[in-house]
């Protein structure tokens, strides 16, 4: 692959940089945090930011920065799993829908249905029936992502299937599934990657919203939304407690959006003039 010239795709670089800023500390939290994220230390509660506690401490004396690092990792993993679920279900369905016949109508119907269930409603039902859980949150966010992957996979497949190299593969005796896997999928990989990146941004917003409402991953797992909800009443005396977790979500979303836009500009030159 040709290396991109940096000035041409500023959002690609800005997005990568912002995501690295948020995700590197998050990944680091798997092996190291400045303080144990759950360690309660009432003697040092509600400290202002200092060299020792970069973002201060919360009402229980826990180190805010350490908790945010772990929460970002948790939220990020849930979002990644949800997008993977959306892609794993949506892409095969979309490819199937590209087959001639009633496939297209069926894809449309499933897509309409999926879009009618925003993550919050699915999560509301799953939590009401089964209680909170990581799986419920992943399913709720993932299900809403199925339609988009389905439509994009189908649209991409339809535009590839009439090309000459497909006919050549057919003449060479390759079966339907083999053609879809070996020829169609690699050709729509780029747009699917862009979709996955942009979908991650929306998933991060959904995850934060769900955990803010208490419908996301269950305590004691720290998540960005619940940290904000727990400390919302502290907005008078310790606004940083409320500002910091929201800022991490916003950076995560901004980074994904910029990266997605940048990737689209770079991978799809036809879009360049309308930017």
């Amino acid at each position: 692959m040709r290396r991109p010239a940096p000035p041409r795709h500023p959002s690609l670089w800005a997005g990568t940089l912002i995501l690295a800023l948020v995700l590197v500390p998050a990944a680091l939290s798997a092996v190291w945090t400045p303080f144990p994220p759950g360690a309660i230390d009432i003697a040092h509660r509600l400290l202002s930011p200092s060299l020792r506690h970069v973002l201060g401490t919360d009402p229980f004396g826990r180190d805010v920065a350490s908790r945010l690092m772990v929460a970002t990792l948790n939220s990020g993993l849930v979002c990644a799993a949800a997008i993977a679920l959306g892609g794993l279900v949506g892409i095969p369905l979309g490819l199937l829908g590209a087959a001639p016949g009633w496939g297209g109508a069926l894809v449309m119907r499933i897509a309409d249905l999926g879009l009618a269930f925003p993550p919050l409603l699915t999560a509301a039902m799953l939590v009401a029936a089964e209680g909170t859980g990581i799986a419920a949150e992943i399913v709720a966010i993932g299900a809403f992502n199925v339609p988009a992957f389905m439509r994009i996979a189908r649209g991409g497949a339809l535009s590839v299937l009439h090309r000459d190299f497909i006919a050549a593969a057919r003449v060479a005796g390759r079966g339907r599934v083999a053609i879809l896997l070996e020829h169609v999928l690699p050709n729509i990989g780029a747009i699917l990657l862009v979709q996955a990146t942009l979908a991650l941004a929306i998933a991060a917003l959904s995850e934060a919203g769900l955990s803010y409402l208490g419908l996301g991953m269950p305590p004691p797992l720290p998540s960005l939304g619940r940290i904000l909800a727990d400390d919302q009443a502290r907005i008078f005396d310790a606004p940083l407690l409320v500002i910091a977790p929201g800022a991490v979500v916003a950076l995560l979303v901004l980074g994904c959006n910029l990266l997605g836009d940048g990737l689209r500009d770079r991978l799809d030159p036809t879009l360049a003039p309308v930017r």
Partner: protein
Amino acid sequence: MIRAVGARLGGMALTLLLGSVIVFLLLNALPGDPALVMLGLDATPDAVVRLHHQLGLDLPLPLRYLRWAGGLLTLHLGTSLTYAVPVSQLLADRLRITLPLAGITLLLSVAIGLPVGVAAAARQGRVSDTAIMVAAQLFKAIPDFWGGVLLILLFALVLHWLPSGGFPGWEPSPLAALRALVLPALALALPQAAILARFMRSATLGALSEDFVRTARAKGLGTQAALWRHAVPNALVPVITLVGIQFPLLLTGTIIVETVFDLPGLGRLVLEAIDQRDLPVVQDIVLLLVGLVVLVNVAVDLAALRLDPRLGGERRA
């Protein structure tokens, strides 16, 4: 056109039917006994049997679905287990807050997003265009609830212009009630406006590069007139579709923002119902919201079709 309307309405009915089956199965067929959850683990078997009968849980699943769906079709919703009042009454109460909130949000986001998008398109490539687009990218990334908290911080705690939360009710003073909805609506509308502005900008630029705009310009029409009379109306078609795509997240956004601002709307109702395992309420509200999303998407589809008859030939896929 009539055929297109018929097809859309038929599709809508099918989606609603499938949606109701999904809602019903998720809330009724998953392992776990709602009666046991409601009564607690130390419930006597007798009480569980009685509650089962009261909830209709002793009936076979398909029959229970038919009873529920039949009730919905005749506008007979369930009865709340915790409040012991019809769900329809609860809904009517709570919608008096949620519907105005969603309406104001939609108005605000269109009123901010569209002009900003057109302005950016008209200044394409200039510094002001870039500034608008960077701002839009930033606002788009703000989670509703965080935006709400920041607005409370600024307008309620620092400036003391608007209330920080709660709802005084419509009766004593509609103006005070409206004031209570301004910040929540703004928290929801700003990210939506940012998304709309970005989309409106590229749709307007797309329309500006079309042949009919070049023709209008060649016939001597000024830049501004060509922009407003030809480019903008044509750019509106994809933008209307976008409003439909955004609607589900806007709707669930009101649930989140109602929590931030402590508004007793539909969102609070559904969260309380989840907390108390009031399954009939959850079931009816979720289906109502799913129905609303489906309805808005059909309406948006038809509006786009009416504005641009070219779309009639092929189904949006």
